[in-house]
């Protein structure tokens, strides 16, 4: 450890010394380099190179002009669309980005392509291509900044920044990006195009990166500290985001001072961290009003994509041969790749789990607690199925995840599965009834045979209100109180008396001498009255009707019937009988009393 630290410090020291040398020798060298560039330009080949550059510029402008002739109207149409929500603004912004980037790429492609047609003086071609790429990066940065911050169009702004700040923010960001691009592209041009300008290149790079770091450092304090304080208002104070951001900038800059390659990795890590900090508010800014699963899924996906992109960028920055990475001999890299695979699987499982769980919870919350006095409806079926689904999914996902992770880690899962298979057979014989119950239960639920709250009668004299449905059995509350636990396998054919409607019939024995038609009309009238009644009316699906059914010695039997919702027939019948009795009394008719009247005929 000590040796390693000493080695690291030695590298850093050497680098700092080199930077110091760059700074010391740059002015002298710059003078020399400028002179040689001037000398090279002021010749026939120099003029020729200048002519070619002018031609390239015109070619690029012409191609981009042609493109904008067609693209300008659609772009304006997109920009003038009303952006009701941040997400619409995002869509418009993406379109704007695509249009602008396409134009810039066309310009670059045309310029670089055309440059191949000329025979250039030595070194110039490389300089021209590098300059074109620098222009590309600068313009792309500008389009990116303009799309995200939209200083001129507050309507389409993609991040919540106040109009007063946005111009400064855009200018600062653009300046930093431009400086970084200059630092990245200019020194190689100087080193390649003009010999012996290494020190100038180094000094320029140092200046550019230092300025960029300064701007970012100041910007972190100027924008993130204040904006947060203002937005939070009365809320309890949180740790200001400006500090970690500024710290990241300083850390990357310090690493760069020590080591060039490591700085690229540090910069990528810093960007990934900054993005991870900003991701949650950004995602909720766009998808927050949606509620439900979407923001959580988008957030976890975005986090993962950012992290993965960071890993890819680091690999690129370190010039890692990606294709041979998988065959790499180093155990650490192999393990790292496998862990990455497991992380991908975990993310996928997490996403699916969040999606299903929040959809289920959302639905359950919307249905609300079930009211046992209400008749069961479609939502009570959901109430039985959804929790079941949630648990099943969780178990399934977990099992799948574990198996896939083991597989991704390179652990053979075939014996495991085979072992599980043998165990499964053994268990299967024992758990035959259990399996039968579960499968029968699935079909009961799929057939919608009963729901929580319904009164059913099954095989073997089991009857009662369905209180609970589980994976294996149903709990029935008998009307006298006992609770039956009936496994689905033993439930048999189910008679559900709580579905849709019931028909109730009852008899009225009346004396033989009543006028049948009058009684029929009276019952019908009562039926109409009950239909009008506020309390009973809604319970009458079909009105009460009665007709002469049978004539027995001394008795006329009238049969009445009506249709009502399940479970309500008893109330309705009682009410009907009450009314019929009152009406009969009013008519002076009594119920048949069962007494037989014997009439003795005197022959004399």
């Amino acid at each position, binding site marked *: 450890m000590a040796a390693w630290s000493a080695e690291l410090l030695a590298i850093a020291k050497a680098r700092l010394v080199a930077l110091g040398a760059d700074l010391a020798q740059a002015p002298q060298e710059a003078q020399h380099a400028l002179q040689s560039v001037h000398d090279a330009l002021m010749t026939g080949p120099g003029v020729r190179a200048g002519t070619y550059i002018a031609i390239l510029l*015109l070619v690029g402008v*012409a191609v981009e002009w042609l493109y904008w002739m067609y693209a300008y109207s659609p772009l304006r149409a997109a920009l003038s669309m009303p952006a009701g929500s941040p997400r619409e603004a995002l869509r418009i912004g993406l379109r704007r980005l695509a249009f602008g980037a396409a134009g810039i790429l066309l310009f670059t492609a045309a310029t670089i392509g055309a440059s191949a047609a000329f025979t250039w003086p030595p070194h110039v071609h490389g300089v021209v291509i590098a300059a074109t790429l620098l222009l590309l990066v600068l313009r792309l940065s500008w389009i990116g900044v303009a799309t995200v911050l939209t200083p001129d169009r507050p309507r389409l702004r993609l991040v919540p920044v106040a109009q007063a700040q946005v111009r400064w923010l855009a200018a600062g960001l653009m300046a930093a990006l431009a400086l970084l691009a200059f630092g990245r592209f200019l020194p190689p041009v100087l080193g390649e195009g003009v010999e012996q300008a290494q020190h100038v290149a180094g000094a320029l790079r140092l200046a550019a990166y230092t300025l960029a770091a300064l701007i970012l450092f100041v910007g972190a304090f100027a924008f993130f500290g204040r904006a947060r304080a203002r937005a939070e208002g009365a809320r309890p104070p949180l740790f200001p985001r400006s500090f970690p951001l500024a710290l990241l900038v300083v850390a990357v800059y310090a690493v760069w001072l020590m080591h060039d390659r490591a700085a690229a990795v540090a910069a990528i890590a810093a960007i990934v961290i900054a993005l991870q900090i900003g991701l949650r508010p950004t995602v909720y800014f766009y998808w927050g009003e949606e509620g439900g699963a979407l923001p959580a899924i988008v957030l976890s996906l975005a986090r993962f994509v950012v992290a993965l992109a960071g890993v890819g960028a680091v690999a690129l920055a370190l010039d890692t041969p990606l294709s041979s990475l998988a065959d790499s001999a180093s155990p650490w890299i192999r393990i790292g790749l496998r862990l990455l695979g497991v992380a991908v699987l975990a993310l996928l499982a997490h996403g699916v789990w969040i999606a299903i769980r929040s959809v289920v919870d959302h639905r359950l919350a919307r249905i609300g607690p079930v009211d046992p006095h209400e008749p069961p409806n479609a939502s009570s079926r959901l109430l039985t199925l959804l929790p079941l689904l949630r648990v099943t999914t969780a178990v399934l996902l977990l099992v799948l995840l574990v198996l896939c992770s083991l597989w991704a880690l390179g652990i053979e899962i075939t014996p495991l599965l085979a072992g599980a298979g043998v165990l499964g057979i053994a268990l299967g014989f024992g758990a035959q009834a259990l399996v039968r119950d579960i499968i029968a239960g699935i079909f009961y639920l799929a057939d919608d045979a009963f729901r929580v709250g319904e009164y059913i009668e099954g095989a073997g004299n089991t009857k009662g209100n369905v209180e609970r449905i589980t994976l294996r059995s149903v709990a029935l509350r008998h009307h006298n109180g006992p609770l039956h636990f009936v496994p689905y396998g033993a439930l048999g054919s189910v008679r559900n008396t709580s579905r849709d409607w019931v028909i109730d019939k009852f008899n009225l024995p009346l004396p033989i001498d009543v006028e049948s038609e009058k009684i029929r009309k009276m019952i019908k009238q009562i039926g109409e009255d009950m239909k009008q009644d506020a309390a009973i009316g809604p319970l009458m699906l079909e009105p009460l009707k009665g007709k002469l059914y049978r004539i027995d010695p001394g008795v006329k039997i009238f049969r009445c019937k009506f249709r009502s919702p399940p479970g309500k027939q008893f109330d309705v019948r009682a009410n009907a009988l009450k009314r019929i009795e009152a009406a009969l009394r009013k008519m002076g008719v009594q119920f048949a009393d069962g007494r037989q009247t014997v009439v003795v005929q005197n022959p004399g």
Partner: protein
Amino acid sequence: MGGSKTIRAVRLVSGLILITFVTCHLANLAIGMRSLAQMEAWRATLTVPWTTGAGQWLLAVAGTIHLSLGLYAVASRRSLTLSATDAAQLTLGLLTPPLLIAHVIALATANRVSPGFADNYGQILAVYWSFAPAYAFLQLFVVVVVWLHGAIGLYSWLVLQPIWRRIGGFVLPVLFALPILALLGFASAGQEVLDRLANDPAWRQMILDNVGKIAKVTRELAGLQNGLLQAYGLLVLLAFAIFGARVLRARLRPVEIAYDGGERAQGRYGLSVLEISLLNDVPHAHVCSGRGRCGTCRVRVDAGAQALSPVGDLERGTLERVGAAAGERLACQAHVLGAGVRVTRLLPAFADATAAQAPHDWAAGAAPHVSAKESA
């Protein structure tokens, strides 16, 4: 950019004269791709007419008028709501005179000191390619700047004409092929000249003598050149100062206008309706960027018509051409001088040049835009 129809026409004609000259000049250079001799032979047809007394006067007058009208346009602006192309054209236009001054003075001096020397492409190219490459770089820069300025102007005038539908397909390629070919001709002829300089010492000596003579006089004329540059700089500054003063004065008098769909926008006294739209990010069609040519920015004035500047001849002409109804104005020409203005935009904000080429096809286009705005 206010201005009457006459001023507009004069500026257009002067610009057309100048671009015709540049076209001839560049075409002559392009012939250099075949050979220096051909270039020289075509000189009589393409370039010589412009160097006669009448030609020079025409160019001088057109150049002066075009420049002063350009500066006048800057001075009479009310805001900096420029489209990207307009900004590019303005910058390129302002760059042109200082770049050309050196060229013109050098040629004039050369003609005075050693008559006939500058009337030969071979000799001039030799100077550029071998003896004073700095001038060559200046020339390359001027070609790009002037041609882009002219191309933007020509394009934005032509694209609004109905004829563009037929000629547009080949005008644009020509517009860019010409300077590219000219530069290729310049390069190819330059190579020829360099070869001759290497193989023909007598010719080389002759040019060297002439260059020495001219350079001496030119150094004496540096004062004149600087004076001209300073005068030009002052003129530009003056134009911008007038513009700035107007903006500062109007800043004290804010006005507000209302749009269809309930949008409102604030501006300064004297800004046009279109400028207020653009400053406030209100979607508003403006194909010609407020020159009063295209008619796509037209609005129906629902209230406060008396608070708008009166209709000028330019606006009346465009309104008649596009078949506008009574009570409609061009938003770019109607300046807001008071409160209570309410307007309805009549064309969707994405209206393009076809709306100017065939205004009646777009008359129905207003409806979906308005309903989209209202439903939003």
